[in-house]
């Protein structure tokens, strides 16, 4: 299979404009003849559904939650980047592009990332016009902050609830289109398969989560805006329902999966307290602007933090990375927290935590200022831990947060199945091996508001409105039968272990061997363990109840079945990528001082995996990354 990224010719800064001109258009009167399915209603899905409906397409939108407003984009805290340069501090589209490419450790496409930086400025305009209440200065203009590894202040924010406000903006735009009859919304409905016929995406099979009814939906194109697969690890900052089912089933129908091993472990999360833990909570990394990360110098020091004098503390990020200090990118901060805990210098009951200390910032700026900046985060921390972070340092530890990998897409966001698109976190495209803070919101909205409305039209104009199959077509019947068969199998096993037990075991395998640092031996063992666990799952899982009801266990069971397959692909990818880059740290490949050692000669490519059947070895296809504008350097934050 030859991967064609369809990157337009010409200078970087002109590619998108030129491409937009070259894309075919659908006549305004003909747009109403097309149907588009949007799966997922987070930032990417809601913005795409709203924008496409505004253009005149008929949209069907799906989400598994009870309302589209609950998609997990809502939980994003810190902010959204845009190259507005309102602060006059030297920002530009090119600098945002450069930072994002470099931050991704040179494993993303130049053209995509440049386009992302280019449209970032339009996003802020659009959101303000929708009534998103961004933070403002006393003069009435928008406020910015510096965020996660950036040396300019380009992050727009709405206290610690930026994702919420942006999502409610997109949700309200979509709600307007629902009222106008241009978007038909299907809440509590989960996509369980993609229908492909004649090599093109034709629709989806869904399950109504209340009645269990399996339904068929046909369309001219299908957009997967279904987020990432961090819940493979069981514990992550994802929502409980976040899952990979839509993307994975599309993969099994022929969509290649790009860079599955690139996962982001976020450094500032609330540590695990016990086996009952169901999810992990992120503390926005904006906290690292004012908080100082430290552990005791001495291993096994059990004194409370206030009894440890200044000269017996190790501010390890400031010590190792004097120029970036506590603001080093996420992968670097996480890995270093792991190192100090591995050395026995971790804090708290579990010893798997480091301090994030605000004492100096409170002394410098006063408690009121710190409260104004981070009040809701401090409150959240106190509610969860029962400790007051104004008085005692927070305890934080890394947790799985985001997946840079995802369905492989070309410049038009189309997967290797014509008519099937992937937007936002569900695709692999813009963040390379590591995503910078405040870039996920930017990408989700860029894809939905400003990219897919152009690129989708080109595909639709080319196929014409007659190129659609009815839901009576055998392709639908076949896909529906497969879904029903899987469900009845899961219900009939009636084994001895619960879905959660399997999920927790899988999560532990992934965290231990395919988490913050990986090695060949561990990965090979993990692959075997996953296969065994998967085999056991299909013999020993217990899913009670029936299909024809609200069945919370069955919902989980279909998702975990997919995690048990996707995890193996993540391990395959991690094993084959014999280098360290971004969030992918292979212990065999590091510099003498323990930093990630890339191998650009051999691995400057996107690994796009092809599904070959159950328990068959997946096959990798390579899309070479060509860097015409940036020079590949070792990332240094020293």
């Amino acid at each position, binding site marked *: 299979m030859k991967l064609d990224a369809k990157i337009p010719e010409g200078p970087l800064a002109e590619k998108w404009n030129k491409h937009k001109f070259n894309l075919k258009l659908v006549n305004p009167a003909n747009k109403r003849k097309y149907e588009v399915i949007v799966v997922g209603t987070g930032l990417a899905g809601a*913005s795409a559904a709203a*924008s496409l409906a*505004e253009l005149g397409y008929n949209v069907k939108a799906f989400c598994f*939650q*009870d*309302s589209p*407003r*609950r*998609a*997990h984009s*809502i*939980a994003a805290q810190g902010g959204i980047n845009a190259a*507005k340069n309102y602060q006059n501090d030297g920002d530009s589209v090119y600098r945002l592009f450069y930072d994002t490419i470099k931050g991704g450790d040179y494993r993303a496409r130049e053209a995509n990332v440049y386009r992302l930086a280019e449209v970032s400025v*339009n996003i*802020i*305009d659009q959101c*303000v*016009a*929708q*009534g998103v*209440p*961004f*933070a*403002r*200065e*006393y003069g*009435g*203009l*928008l406020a910015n902050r510096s965020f996660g590894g950036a040396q300019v202040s380009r992050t727009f924010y*709405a*206290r610690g609830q930026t*994702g*919420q*406000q942006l999502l*409610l903006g997109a949700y*309200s*735009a979509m*709600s*307007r289109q*629902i009222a106008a009859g241009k978007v038909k*919304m299907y*809440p509590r409905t989960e996509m369980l398969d993609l229908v492909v016929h004649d090599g093109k995406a034709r629709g989806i099979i869904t399950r109504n989560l*209340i009645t269990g009814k399996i339904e068929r939906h046909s369309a001219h194109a299908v957009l997967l805006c279904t987020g990432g697969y961090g819940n493979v690890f069981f514990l992550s900052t994802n*929502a*409980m329902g976040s899952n990979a089912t839509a993307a994975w089933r599309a993969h099994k129908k022929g969509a290649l999966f790009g860079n599955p091993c690139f996962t982001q472990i976020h450094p500032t999360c609330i540590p695990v*307290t*016990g086996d*009952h*833990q*169901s999810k992990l909570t*992120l503390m926005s990394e904006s906290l690292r602007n004012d908080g100082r990360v430290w552990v005791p110098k001495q291993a096994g020091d059990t004194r409370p933090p206030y009894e440890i004098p200044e000269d017996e503390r190790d501010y390890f990020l400031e010590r190792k990375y004097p120029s970036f200090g506590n603001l080093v990118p996420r992968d670097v901060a996480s890995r270093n927290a792991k190192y100090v805990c591995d050395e026995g210098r971790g804090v708290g009951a579990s010893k798997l935590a480091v301090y994030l200390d605000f004492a100096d910032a409170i002394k410098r700026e006063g408690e009121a200022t710190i409260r104004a900046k981070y009040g809701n985060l401090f409150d959240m921390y106190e509610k969860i831990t029962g400790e007051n972070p104004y008085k005692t340092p927070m305890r934080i530890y890394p947790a799985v947060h985001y997946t840079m990998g995802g369905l492989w897409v070309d410049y038009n966001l189309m997967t290797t199945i014509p008519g099937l698109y992937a937007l936002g976190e569900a695709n692999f495209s813009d963040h390379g091996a590591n995503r910078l803070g405040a870039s996920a919101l930017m990408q989700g909205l860029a894809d939905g*508001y400003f990219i897919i409305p152009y690129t989708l039209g080109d595909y639709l104009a080319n196929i014409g409105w007659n190129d659609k199959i009815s839901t009576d077509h055998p392709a639908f019947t076949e896909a529906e039968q497969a879904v029903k068969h899987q469900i009845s199998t899961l219900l009939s096993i009636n084994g001895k272990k*619960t879905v959660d*037990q399997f999920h927790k075991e899988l999560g532990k395998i992934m965290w231990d061997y395919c988490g913050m640092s990986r090695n060949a031996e561990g990965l090979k063992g993990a692959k075997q363990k996953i296969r065994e666990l998967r085999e056991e799952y299909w013999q020993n899982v217990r899913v*009670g*109840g029936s299909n024809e*009801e*609200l069945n*919370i*266990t069955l919902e989980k069971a279909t998702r975990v079945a997919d995690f048990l397959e996707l995890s193996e692909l993540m391990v395959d990818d991690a094993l084959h990528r014999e280098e360290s880059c971004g969030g992918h740290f292979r212990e065999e490949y590091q510099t003498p001082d323990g930093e990630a050692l890339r191998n650009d000669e051999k691995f400057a490519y996107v690994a796009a995996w092809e599904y070959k059947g159950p328990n068959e070895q997946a096959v990798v296809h390579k899309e070479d990354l060509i860097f015409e504008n940036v020079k590949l350097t070792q990332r240094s934050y020293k």
Partner: protein
Amino acid sequence: MNLTLKVWRQKNANSKGELKTYHVKDISPDMSFLEMFDVLNEELLLKGEDPIAFDHDCREGICGMCSMYINGHPHGPEQTTTCQLHMRSFKDGDTIVVEPWRAKAFPVVKDLVVDRSAFDRIIQAGGYISVNTGNAPDANEIPISKEVADAAFNAATCIGCGACVAACKNASAMLFVSAKVAQLSMLPQGQIERKRRVEQMVAKMDEEGFGACTNTGACAAECPKEISLANIAILNREYLIAKATSEYV
């Protein structure tokens, strides 16, 4: 901790429900309330019983999906969401009564799960600013004073969980509706549709079967996001002005 739970069980929208008693043992005070339910559900599943259905998703207090009515309070004894309620708020030996949101406009789907789609329909009736993608002027073209932006933000933090409705003896949705109306009516971008918005949203609210507001204030007292009762005053003022002067509705 060992606790006794009395939980509302109802098979589906059409069947009759009842409170059932369960005992949970060895509960850690660090667990969240929902994690305690996870433990119970695992036990039920292994015993061959139907686990208790409840809504939840982000488990960090922002998606608004969790919705348990605990010991007579929406989201329980603390002013927070159910997912952010921790077992340290209870004592060993406590009996805890857990019910779904009770409101005609929020029919029970199963056990503790209710249908809150009425809230979505209220937003669809006018809870937006009509601006198609691509139409926006530069974000800094219209300055908005920090005070106004902050006030709009405070109203905009509503998570749409429905605790206000569950807390209200009349099951009124005034706090929810007022938060959106207040946010958008304060902002310069929201002026054009200001009257139409409030009229349409209020009409929809009534149509959905929510009760009337008698200014008791239980909604604001129980709101996990501390949406202020002042928003209801703003809503009333906006509605009055709109009704007195507009051509719509």
